[in-house]
């Protein structure tokens, strides 16, 4: 089974600071990481490989330093990495096109795994877009999957419905956070992964004249001012004060 895991390098949103004057997020210096759910996609790929054998390729479109992130997934169990280096402000159309071109180049794949959505943008757009570009079926929001020799079956969490969908290969599957608990690589695995190949190609070498269809022209800040009154001591007293304050705020009404 040949599996491609699409993994994105993102800023760690929980480490983001807000500029107190402009209320805008400060984008410089925020730690980078692999988008959380892409680790679940990686873990699922390993499980499928454990059952059927084959090869796992991690594919990332991103800046050159995303190589460090790919190494983390190689340590988890991927066999090799492919980094498509791209200019900074690329849109979904460009990302999906580059992923599709890279995948055509890799060739011979059965399953493409993506996250349900990336933690920074949370669009859930790349998976379906990529499936459209490759003209293959898409199975979204998979909460569990069973891969067999010639088909895959997934339980999909669609909110008000649970839907079981199956598909022959090749197929693109997007997974949710609940599908598994990603493994933490051991020190041995981390060391061994240094020998696994990471290929690097430029966006230009895959396709020329790729322009954004959508551009982010501004990032507006959102402020959240809170009173931050915290009671720490005697619980009875705390409860009393809280209830008095809620009454004053006018939220206790019969």
């Amino acid at each position, binding site marked *: 089974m040949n599996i491609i895991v699409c993994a994105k390098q993102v800023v760690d949103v929980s480490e983001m600071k807000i500029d107190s004057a402009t209320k805008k997020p400060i984008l410089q210096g925020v730690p980078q990481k692999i988008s959380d759910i892409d680790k679940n996609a990686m873990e699922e790929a390993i499980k499928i490989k454990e059952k059927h054998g084959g090869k796992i390729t991690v594919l990332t479109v991103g800046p050159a330093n995303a190589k460090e992130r790919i190494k983390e997934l190689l340590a988890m169990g991927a066999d090799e990495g492919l980094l498509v280096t791209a200019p900074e402000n690329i849109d979904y159309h460009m990302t999906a096109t580059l992923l599709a071109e890279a995948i055509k180049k890799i060739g011979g794949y059965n399953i493409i795994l993506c996250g349900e959505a990336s933690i920074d943008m949370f669009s859930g757009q790349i998976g379906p877009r990529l499936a459209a570009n490759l003209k293959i079926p898409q199975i979204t929001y998979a909460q569990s999957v069973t891969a067999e020799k010639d088909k895959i079956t997934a339980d999909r969490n669609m909110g008000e419905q649970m839907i079981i969908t199956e598909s022959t290969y090749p197929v693109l599957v997007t997974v949710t956070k609940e599908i598994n608990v990603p493994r933490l690589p051991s020190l041995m695995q981390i060391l061994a992964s240094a020998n696994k190949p990471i290929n690097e190609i430029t966006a230009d070498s895959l396709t020329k004249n790729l322009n954004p269809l959508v551009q982010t022209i501004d990032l507006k800040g959102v402020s959240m001012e809170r009173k931050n009154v915290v009671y720490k001591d005697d619980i009875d007293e705390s409860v009393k004060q809280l209830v008095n304050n809620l009454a004053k705020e006018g939220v206790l009404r*019969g």
Partner: protein
Amino acid sequence: MVLVYSDNKNITIEMLSKAAELAKETKKKVTATIIGKADENLAKEYISYGADKVFIAETNLKDFKAEEYADILSKIVKETKSEIILVGSNKNGKELAARLGGLLNAGCIVDSNNVYMKNNKLLAERIVYSGNAIAVNQFNSKPAIVTIPSKAFDPLKKDTSRKGEVTKKKIDGEKSNSKIVKVTEMKTGGVNVEDAEIIVSCGRGFKNKDDIKLVQELADVLKGKTVGCSRPIAADMKWLSEEHWIGLSGHKVKPKLYIAAGISGQIQHIAGMRDSGIVVAINKDPDALIFKSADYGIVGDLYTVLPKLISAVKEKMG
């Protein structure tokens, strides 16, 4: 043409009012789309809510599959020469819109609460970085696809005297290799956290499913009656249904009072409740992030605090 599609009637009606506004500014018309059975009454209803035309794509597809629907919708877009496409932002709509974007090589913005024209360009704003910012996105090309969540826009006043044209056409989509094996309706209790004025939410601080009655009880005495929860309670433990789930990947709420008990306050949870009026947090960890997003907090064991809070509120409210 401004094209509107959702499998959810209410979102379609809400989008029609936005579509009418965009159509006016771009000197175009609004077409509502129905995919499936030729439902003439529904078509009339869409006209009374602002559609100039209704395009019914008759298919006998039994289930929704994004691959097949996206193919049909791409044909409708071409036939109606649509330049702006609004799709309802439920789970089906999002994967449909994204796939349509891929098929048409069109720009797509998911989950936009604010869409407007500026200098002849379509702009769509959306929340990014888990609620830390709003990105203003500009489309440089046509067609442009935007998905719109429920309650983003108020519907127009229903006017049954409005006239519109209904086109029916059989359209065959490309068949997909995927197959729906089984659909199970999840048990829901008709809870609507999005409209609730008071919400009491629970998180992993609760040890058993049964203990959730503590939040229910507090919600009851507060006359709020609405229980919310963090993602793990709905998605991992399945102690509550999806309709209670609040956050980035769940429901976005804005009650007058939001009480979070046993919730750590990770940014993905905050993304769903940051527009609340007063926020109260109960957590035994004094360093829990939730206190940073709260107006009032009590550091303590929820199993001690909640019963006391319930009786204190009872007493206060008489």
